[in-house]
């Protein structure tokens, strides 16, 4: 039987929160069985409603609905890890709703990311490169013979596969030429290969000269060129580790994970499983190592309160908190930890916490807290939010709540409201 604290940590990092039912289900298992269980995406049976997959007249309304549907799914899916990984890929193979303002195409792209979240990385890279929103976002739809646009070619290597310093400017130029002609149909805006705009001349890419075509570039990076494939494997292993465990991992961990990744010909599922089974994943450094991003923190609130994203008003706060779905800040995606720790962004989190607290009180809950002992009340609210308070935090909050109760007189709801808000803004809730 795996250690309960490790199970809770595993669930927090994969399913956003450690639901009691999930802890109970995983507790009798070995760690490996538990990891297999969180990866059992066959349990996820919901999909977006049919209307949402088709372009609607009210595009922004559709976008809002998509945003809320996805957050709700993160909070309520049988195996939310699939959604968390989809979020990772959304922030890795980045594009932005604003590139085309086509909610249907955006949903289609996210659907690809969900389907391939633990699939083959090379197949995934091929597929994502011809998604309409990607072609538009990185301007490959304007990449034409005689007037090449390097945007996509550069980001393909710099941000999507290899990282800076592992290719040259002339490789970017060659890759851009190879990707000419892969564009959007003028009418339908779906992917179209326009041979008349494709540069069929010889290009020299990673030292090989031939008439390279776009998809062949991806194969060259991720299959046929062993040194580059190894670099890509380390690049992706590192990114996934930093997303799931902690930033700036030890090189030895990454090297081992990358070796395994190459050995499976870049299958993502075994890589993720290997990450979740490493002892370092269960270290104190890992358990204390990640600040919940705004989406992760919001989903935790939804999961614990049972509110929908619409009711909690998440979308209106997203940009101010520093993260809104479908709107990454740039093609490098969202950063982590310190990136979210600015006064302005935390003001936005706090205002969302106020909103959620108001909703909780409005729905008539927590009245019973008013008559409990302060210590019991605090423990109750902490448990409600899945928070395990450090002793110093706990005694400080009990003390504040007691003084607050004394000061408010008859209107104890004010004190309860403050306690709810405070709990959502603890270090334990934001760095669980």
């Amino acid at each position: 039987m795996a250690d309960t604290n490790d199970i809770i940590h595993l669930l927090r990092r994969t399913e956003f929160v450690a639901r009691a039912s999930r802890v109970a289900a995983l507790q009798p298992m070995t760690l490996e069985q538990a990891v297999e269980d969180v990866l059992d995406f066959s349990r996820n049976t919901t999909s977006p409603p049919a209307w949402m997959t088709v372009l609607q007249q009210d595009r922004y309304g559709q976008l809002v609905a998509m945003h809320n549907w996805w957050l709700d799914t993160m909070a309520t899916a049988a195996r939310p890890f699939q959604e968390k990984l989809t979020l990772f890929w959304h922030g890795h193979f980045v594009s932005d709703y604003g590139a085309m303002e086509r909610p249907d195409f955006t949903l289609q792209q996210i659907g690809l990311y969900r389907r391939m979240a633990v699939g083959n990385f090379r197949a995934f890279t091929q597929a994502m490169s011809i998604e309409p929103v990607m072609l538009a976002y990185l301007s490959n739809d304007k990449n034409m013979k005689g007037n090449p646009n390097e945007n996509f070619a550069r980001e393909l290597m710099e941000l999507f596969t290899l990282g800076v310093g592992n290719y040259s400017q002339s490789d970017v130029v060659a890759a851009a030429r190879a990707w000419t002609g892969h564009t959007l149909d003028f009418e339908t805006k779906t992917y179209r290969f326009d041979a008349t705009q494709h540069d069929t001349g010889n290009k020299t890419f990673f030292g090989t000269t031939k008439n390279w075509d776009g998809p062949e570039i991806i194969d060259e990076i991720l299959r046929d060129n062993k040194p580059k494939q190894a670099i890509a494997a380390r690049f992706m292993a590192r990114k996934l580790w930093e997303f799931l465990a902690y930033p700036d991992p030890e090189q030895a961990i990454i090297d081992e994970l990358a070796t395994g990744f190459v050995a499976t010909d870049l299958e993502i599922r075994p890589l993720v499983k290997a990450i979740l089974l490493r002892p370092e994943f269960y270290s104190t450094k890992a358990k204390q190592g990640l600040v919940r991003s705004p989406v992760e923190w919001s989903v935790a609130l939804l999961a614990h309160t049972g509110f929908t994203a619409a009711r909690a008003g998440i979308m209106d706060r997203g940009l101010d908190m520093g993260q809104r779905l479908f709107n990454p800040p740039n093609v490098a995606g969202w950063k982590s930890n310190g990136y979210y720790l600015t006064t302005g962004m935390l003001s936005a989190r706090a205002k969302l916490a106020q909103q959620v607290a108001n909703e909780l009180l409005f729905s008539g809950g927590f009245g019973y807290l008013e008559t409990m002992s302060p210590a019991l009340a605090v423990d109750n609210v902490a448990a409600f939010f899945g928070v395990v308070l450090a002793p110093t935090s706990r005694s400080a909050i009990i003390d504040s709540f007691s003084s607050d109760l004394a000061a408010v007189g008859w209107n104890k709801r004010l004190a309860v409201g403050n306690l709810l808000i405070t709990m959502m803004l603890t270090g334990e809730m934001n760095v669980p």
Partner: protein
Amino acid sequence: MRHESDLETEDMVAALSQPDPDLERPGPNGWTRRKFLTAVGAGAIGAVASTELFGGVPSAWAAPLTTSEGIIVTVTMYGGYDGLNVVVPYTNSTYYGRRPGLAIAPEQVLQINNAIGWAPQLTTLKSLYDSGQVAVVQGVGYANPNLSHFDSMKIWMRGSIGNPLQESGWLGRWLDGLSATSADLAAAGLNTLLPMHLVGANRKGVTIPIDGNNFGASSVPADLRLYDGIKRLAANAGRGGWHDAFTATMKSQLEVASLVAPTFTGAAAPAGDELTRQLTVAARLINANLGLRVIDVSTSGLDHHVNQAPGLTAKLTDLDRGLAAFFAELAPGRRPQVTVVVLTEFGRTIGVNGSLGTDHGTTNPMFLIGSKVNGGLYGSMPSLTTLDSHGRQLAQVDFRSIYGSILDGWMGGGGSTVLGGSFEDLRLFSGPPGPGTTPTPTTPTTTAP
């Protein structure tokens, strides 16, 4: 053939709005008290033991300025505005020859001299210039420019070229060098994302939402108790450095909010475009004398690869209105210690491209505005015919000279430390910040291009 990435500048701005993650990692034993607290802009509190953090706002938080401490407002225009259509060479045949459909007609230009003039939208800037309060530094860039837009932005915000150690911004490093008490609330950005130039190695600026709708701004007793309760949690909880960094930032947020709240309550909501609203709030924050010495406002969308004219016209209108609003709002008593600095990345191409836009270039004019600015033209407009190997203009003034001249001439010094070297003193100021006798300004050279 484009050499540079065609990324939207907003994207790059955000990419450069925080240091890379590996600067943020806690040490093996967790962060030292001073390091994590100063890293979230809590300044002086870093010098104080954690047990003293409880119970009350440390008086060090509000450190009003004397009238002789220099203040800058950086107006950061992301994307690289098209300088040739801002300071226009209206008698230059190459300019007209290479920009059919985009060049500004000579009769529309607001003349500076018989060779250059302002874009027609810049009436406020012209009138400030005519009263000697604007320094136009021409041909700003650096030698052997990097053609990657992304890399150029990094260089510009960091104030260093190719130095791998300088993963921080120039004003952030200035902030690092302040004494602990002066660092409190010394630098603020008025946008959601804190820009790289306000991030130092140990300190970073705060961000203040300009709608005034900050958490922590209420003075209702129940809310004050809430805030106190949250602030009490900023202590070593024994759960590692990130936990403590979070609670310390929440505490900073509350303290900044209560400090700036009076600036917003009762005041009319700032009106106009985004830049004008930010500049209005910046002036109010300066008037409130909270200790702020650097305020950054910004706008993006200057990266006009396609159909430049309407976009640039709109942005220049916003800039001009914003400057008018700023100086109208700024208390007269503060004027002698305030300089506005308009910054952007390095320029655009001389010729118009196939989409009635311009692509990334190498040099631009930048502006300093204030009553203590040594007004006039600095440097000369780079030639439109003698060009570098990529067909772009040759920079005349290293951008670090501007930073150094500001740091040493206006912000109390530290230029060579911040910039990792000495750069030309451009003598941009007619005297130190504050009232007091102004020596006769020397007239800088006004060379026609």
